[in-house]
């Protein structure tokens, strides 16, 4: 287990060592299944922190818990010193104005064009004149390389373009923190490269704090300052990319190297094959 983040850290924008997000004793159930069982996670200011783990381990659920869309069954989640679970409706919505989130499929509003999608939060939360909103939107789109696509409708965009537009929309209000939900899934190598570099550059240029949820190990570790690996409701490893590569855990080795067999078996638990074939499973 690696305790220090200092090796890969960049200077915090605020200079404050206190984590932006502090998760303590988080427990969350779906039915009787524990998605998180008393886990602790720190997200430090100015860093890009990755949350990795196999499909179905609750990585997206973690983002929803941080954003206050779900309530934990136990534990605390502090975002910038505010306990998400104890905030009133109004306070929670005020906090969300300072958080941007990129959804897995982009979640663009299909009845609005690219420009209006990016302008949405600005029109909802500010009283800026339309000329200024136009300038801001075009600058955000320029940052993701899609200024020229501002009049297109979401159906006219490729998957990678949709995510970049959604990224521009998420940073429209200049948030303090960005949460990325599986941004690399299903992307071709060029788009993947664009997104990987974009996430890192945006984090540094805008002095963001970023949480990147992904199971694309290589790409994620190439840009993450720090990473948590979660499985079956527990944090099984955390540390810098280099530290994770030198892990002693067989499970983490299997996950990071994509091995088909290991602590996570190739076969789903089943009865005897001979019995199944000859007796139709009736022993």
């Amino acid at each position, binding site marked *: 287990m690696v305790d220090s983040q200092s090796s890969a850290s960049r200077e915090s924008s605020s200079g404050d060592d206190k984590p932006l997000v502090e998760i303590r004793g988080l427990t969350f159930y779906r039915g009787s299944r524990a998605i998180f069982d008393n886990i602790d996670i720190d997200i430090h200011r100015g860093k890009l922190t990755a949350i990795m783990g196999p499909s179905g381990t609750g990585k997206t659920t973690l983002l*929803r818990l941080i*954003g206050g*869309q779900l309530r934990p069954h136990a534990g605390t989640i502090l975002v910038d010193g505010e306990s998400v679970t104890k905030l009133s409706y109004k306070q929670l*919505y*005020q906090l*969300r*104005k300072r*958080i*941007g*989130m990129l*959804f*897995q*499929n982009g*979640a*663009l*509003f*299909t009845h609005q064009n690219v420009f209006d999608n990016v302008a*949405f*939060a600005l029109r*909802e*939360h500010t009283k800026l004149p339309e000329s200024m909103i136009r300038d801001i939107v075009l600058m955000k789109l320029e940052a993701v390389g899609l200024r020229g696509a501002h009049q297109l409708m979401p159906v006219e965009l490729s998957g990678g373009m949709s995510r970049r537009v*959604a990224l521009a*929309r998420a940073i429209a*209000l200049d948030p303090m923190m960005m949460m990325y939900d599986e941004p690399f899934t299903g992307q071709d190598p060029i788009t993947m490269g664009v997104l990987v570099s974009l996430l890192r550059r945006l984090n540094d240029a805008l002095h963001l704090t970023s949480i990147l949820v992904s199971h694309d190990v290589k790409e994620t570790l190439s840009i993450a300052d720090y990473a948590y690996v979660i499985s079956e409701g527990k944090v099984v490893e955390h540390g810098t990319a280099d530290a994770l590569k030198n892990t002693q855990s067989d499970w983490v080795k299997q996950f990071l190297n994509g091995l088909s067999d290991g602590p996570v078996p190739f076969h789903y638990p089943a009865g005897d094959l001979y019995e199944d074939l000859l007796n139709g499973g009736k022993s």
Partner: protein
Amino acid sequence: MIAFIENLGESALNIFEKLGRGVVFFINALAGFPALILRFTLVIQQLYAVGVLSLIIIGVAGFFVGMVLGLQGYNTLIDFGAEESLGVVVALTLVRELGPVVSALLYAGRAGSALTAEIGLMKATEQLSAMEMMAVDPMHRVIAPRLLAGIIAVPLLAALFSAVGVMGGYFVGVGLVGVDEGTFWSQMQDSVDIYDDVLNGVIKSIVFGIVVTWIAVFEGYDTVPTSEGVSRATTRTVVHGSLAVLGLDFVLTALMFGD
């Protein structure tokens, strides 16, 4: 037997639980109404979607229903030598009953199903979640304008249905079968009361507008976010909306016109 009773109990609990969620949902949506005064363009956009786009089906259906009423009414009344009362029969039937009821049924089928599908797909594609994370409450931004637009649109559509229906009755009664034009209109004017008939019809259509739009937006918001879930929710909107209209029509008729 025990299993049957357990299933029955579970189904009843599910129904009450959903009803409870629906009531809370409705109250939350109503809480978004005051803010719409300052952003009435959101309501106007939805009025176009649920109202203006329903005009053709309401107009065509109203005209045909009026024509049928004219023909059936004439064939019945002539046996009693009372064909001069055709205008009254057509107008009262439309204003009291068929206008509010049929227009609400058509509204549930055309606009209600579209509302459910739209909101359900917004949920399935995480657009509602994205809105929440941008600190915009979907209850206020998406649901409230649609609910208010439905409440405004249905009485207007019902009024249009009745007006076009009267024209259909006039076309058949006066134009085709030869009822006297003056008698047709004057008897209608004498017998249709603005409070007892027209106002009661308007009240019915407002109630239908509230209930059908509430069902439509709630089913969309409450849908299981899959293609099958959206499909089922859309079906439920039409079925539950239509049954609610027919059931409430009896209750309201009994309250308004029962002795």
